[in-house]
């Protein structure tokens, strides 16, 4: 009977003591290099400004662990890559755990207490699990090689839209080589591991405590059988094993040592980034501290340490690059490349113990590592990048902070400058007199209450476009009619309402935002109401998420939830189910920003429409292109606009009758795009409110025809 204590693997079998010492020396050396490399990274982050992590670190850690163990963020929009990554992740983790387990016995427990546990059944199951882990690891790596080398998704060539071929930092071959080196070195470690297993088995085949249990290491055993099959003898196997042992060991230790210097550091930077995630990063932008002299980001050291960490967390997966509407329409912006540029810049300037002169820390411009004006102004702040990033990089706050500096310096498109001046003067982007804000209500038979003069249940925050743009004024009048028919008690702020400021803030004019928000909050505080309702998703976002930082916390809903309630409760009755084949465009600021995907769809169902979602729907909805102040900047001529790209996507839907929106800017952008893409007559663009009006058909009495508004 074989003694179970002998069913184990003798470490350093047949090694001279000097060899073991040398190995340990190299091992400690590798750990030392690893620690030093880690210190260099941490020192780099310390050059950033302060940042206070909200919430308990323990619950953040738990959330991060759940995210990592389920690979929830990694399987989104690329199931195959997510699955392969899980194989690599869990394979590697198990193998690392395995090695650590052995170390616990060999280097700690056994020398100190004489205790052993790595033998017998435990050892056999251990061997099986680790063989499976190695297979998972190898399998995942091979898939990734196939994906990169044969499938060749375009995002993995890292071609960047913000540089031209003559620029020194245009060439991305360095990144591609590093990626392949990473895959190959890990694969070599895995494969040599299995071959080593096989070699050891052949070498020790004469020992029953080894050979009789070989199938507990199935892969190693298969290798051993194959080697024996081609005539490999025990002695030769032993020699090969010695050489291969060192080869495998040295590559593995080099791999560990180089972690902080290579993309493998994402093991730590990605998990830390996930742990520090701010779920409202794009929805609630940071205030400028009153004590701060300068505004926005001019230098790499203006970023806070968490943002510097973000720069290192990026794994170049390209999901943000693919999701970005600016990138999709040829603008010189890729969120990925903003992050990578700044990473390269930080690595160049913050890599040593002394800081270079401030002038060398300027991150604005076109030199290697800098981000240009054109790139920054291309952003629509639609948050597709932030939302999809598997490692929780927060691109938008960085872009907006850099814009703040551009605004301060006046480096803006002249039309944008003019618009900001107009908003500062008149409180709206149309340049209309404040007194005219409520003019659209004159066409209604029943006047709307003034919430400044009498208490109401709902304060309706209308917004600029819905107040002044003729097409959107019709929608406002329709919505007013619906509310009145449902006997909702509501009122307006009339000329005390100003631009809510969401886009002004995202342009980077923080001072003007402060002015607008403060004025609106004061007006709201002087009115009496229970809840705010708004037809404008941009206003919805900023009032809901940002006004609190300026002293105004209010309950607010977007009209879609209110209308849904009115329909479900029967206060509005569907008398004419519409039967249209429709698609719904999720507005960025309602959908992605505030998770408001369901109410509009519920409404469409209730009014009897057949909804066929576009491929890029819900969290992946494709921005109309008007956000981030872009509606106040001219688009380049002759290039496809995001709205056109989106309408072309909708045009693929067989028999589409109505393209439904629930945002004033969407209505404007898409009606235009239907015309300019030649889809006029094929389908129409309608606001959801207008469809509800049709389905809840009841005469709407207007004093004057809707078209003739002053």
């Amino acid at each position: 009977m074989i003694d179970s204590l002998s069913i184990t693997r003798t470490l350093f079998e047949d090694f001279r003591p000097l060899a073991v010492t040398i190995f340990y020396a190299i091992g400690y050396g590798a750990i030392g290099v690893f620690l030093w490399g880690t210190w260099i990274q941490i020192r780099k982050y310390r050059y950033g400004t302060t940042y206070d992590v909200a919430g308990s670190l323990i619950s953040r850690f738990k959330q991060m662990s759940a995210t990592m163990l389920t690979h929830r963020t990694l399987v989104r929009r690329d199931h195959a890559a997510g699955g392969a990554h899980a194989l690599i992740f869990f394979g590697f983790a198990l193998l690392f755990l395995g090695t650590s387990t052995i170390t616990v016995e060999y280097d700690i427990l056994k020398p100190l207490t004489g205790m052993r546990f790595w033998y017998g059944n435990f050892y056999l199951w251990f061997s099986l699990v680790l063989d499976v882990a190695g297979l998972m690891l190898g399998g995942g790596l091979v898939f990734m090689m196939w994906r990169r080398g044969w499938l060749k998704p375009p995002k993995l060539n890292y071609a960047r839209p913000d540089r031209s071929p003559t620029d020194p930092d245009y060439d991305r071959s360095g990144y591609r080589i590093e990626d392949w080196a990473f895959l190959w070195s890990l694969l070599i470690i895995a494969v040599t591991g299995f071959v080593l297993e096989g070699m050891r088995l052949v070498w020790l085949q004469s020992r029953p405590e080894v050979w009789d249990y070989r199938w507990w290491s199935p892969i190693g055993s298969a290798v051993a059988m194959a080697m024996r099959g081609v005539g490999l003898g025990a002695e030769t196997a032993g020699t090969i094993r010695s050489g291969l042992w060192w080869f495998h060991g040295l590559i593995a230790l080099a791999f560990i040592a180089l972690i902080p210097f290579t993309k493998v550091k994402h093991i730590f930077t990605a998990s830390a980034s996930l742990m520090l995630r701010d779920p409202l990063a794009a929805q609630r932008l940071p205030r400028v501290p009153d004590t701060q002299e300068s505004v926005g980001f001019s230098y790499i050291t203006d970023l806070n340490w968490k943002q510097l960490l973000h720069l290192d967390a990026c794994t170049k997966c390209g999901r943000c690059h693919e999701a970005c509407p600016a990138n999709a329409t040829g603008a010189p912006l890729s969120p990925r490349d903003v992050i990578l540029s700044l990473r390269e810049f930080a690595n160049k300037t913050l890599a040593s113990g002394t800081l270079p002169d401030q002038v060398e820390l300027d991150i604005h411009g076109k030199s290697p590592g800098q981000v240009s004006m054109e790139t920054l102004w291309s952003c629509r702040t639609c948050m597709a990048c932030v939302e999809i990033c598997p490692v929780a990089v927060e691109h938008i706050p960085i872009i907006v902070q850099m814009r703040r500096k551009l605004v301060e310096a006046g480096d803006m498109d002249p039309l944008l400058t003019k618009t900001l001046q107009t908003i500062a003067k008149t409180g709206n982007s149309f340049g209309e007199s404040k007194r005219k804000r409520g003019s659209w209500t004159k066409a209604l038979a029943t006047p709307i209450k003034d919430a400044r003069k009498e208490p109401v249940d709902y304060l309706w925050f209308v917004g600029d476009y819905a107040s002044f743009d003729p097409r959107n004024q019709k929608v406002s009048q329709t919505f007013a009619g619906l509310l009145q028919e449902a006997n909702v008690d509501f009122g307006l702020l009339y000329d005390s309402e100003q631009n809510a400021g969401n886009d002004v803030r995202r342009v980077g004019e923080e001072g003007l935002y402060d002015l607008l928000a403060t004025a609106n909050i004061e007006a709201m505080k002087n009115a009496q109401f229970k809840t705010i309702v708004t037809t404008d998703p941009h206003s919805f976002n900023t009032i809901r998420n940002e006004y609190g930082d300026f002293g105004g916390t209010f309950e607010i809903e977007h009209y879609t939830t209110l209308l849904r309630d009115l329909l479900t409760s029967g206060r509005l009755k569907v008398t004419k189910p519409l039967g249209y084949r429709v698609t719904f465009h999720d507005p960025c600021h309602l959908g992605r920003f505030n998770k408001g995907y369901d109410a509009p769809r519920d409404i469409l169902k209730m009014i009897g429409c057949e909804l066929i979602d576009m491929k890029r729907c819900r969290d992946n909805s494709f921005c109309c292109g008007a956000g981030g102040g872009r509606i106040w900047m001219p688009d380049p001529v002759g290039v496809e606009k995001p709205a056109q790209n989106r309408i072309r996507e909708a045009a693929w839907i067989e028999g589409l009758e109505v393209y439904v929106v629930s945002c004033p800017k969407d209505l404007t952008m898409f009606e235009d795009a239907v015309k300019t893409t030649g889809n006029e007559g094929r389908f129409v663009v309608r606001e959801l409110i207008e469809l509800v009006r049709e389905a809840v058909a009841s005469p709407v009495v207007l004093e004057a025809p809707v078209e003739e508004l002053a």
Partner: protein
Amino acid sequence: MATKILVAVKQVIALDEDFEIRADGKDVDADFFLRDLNEWDDFSLEEAVKIKEAGGEVEVVVVTVGPEEADESLRKCLAKGADRAVRIWDETMEGSDSQAIARVLAAAIKHEKPDLVFAGVQSSDHSFASTGIAVAGLLGWPHAAVVNQFDFSLGATQAVIRRELEGGVLQMMNIDLPAVLSIQLGINTPRYASLRTIKQAAAKPIESWGLSELSLSASDVGEAGSASRVRRMYIPEKGRAQMIEGSLAEQAAKLAAIIKEFKGASV
């Protein structure tokens, strides 16, 4: 020795929607006033700040004649790079025309002794287009109006200017310094003053002067010191614009009839 550039600015009034004339019939009801810095002054101030930023010791002083509300426009100038701001006002200055204003500004210039004076070609509300040049006349200084290009080196006694005339014609001149120049739109691209810089400029002081600081008396200013007086301000009767109603065919017929009527009348 610092070069001092004095920029005379004005807070002008734009009219809100559906404005009404004041009870005394001499002006629009102040309820409908929208105040802002005169558009020409954006350009003249920018020109001065550009000279300052080109290097050397330069001080830019903005001066305005106006009541307390004008402080807001002065703050905007400070935000854009002016070093000092001065507001001159006395109740007796109410009702001043451009000549009376010029008299006040000339007194301020004698007080400040600048090396260069910029003004806007005109103001967008009263459009006299004479204040800047009247100042030069009172001081006896070299002057040029409608300047759209200005080349000069610090410490020089002459500058080269370009003036905009009618019909797209440009005139280049040498001018002796110190001089008064009225600056035209388009001479440069005025910078944006972010609201934050305007707010920060609120910390900078605005000097406030009255009659005594300038050795002026009440008879020098206001209606007493003006060369003209406002009799009345009014909105002219609406012109002969007529809305042609009806169907397309009816509208076409009516239009044809009107054209025939005018053709007949001109024969």
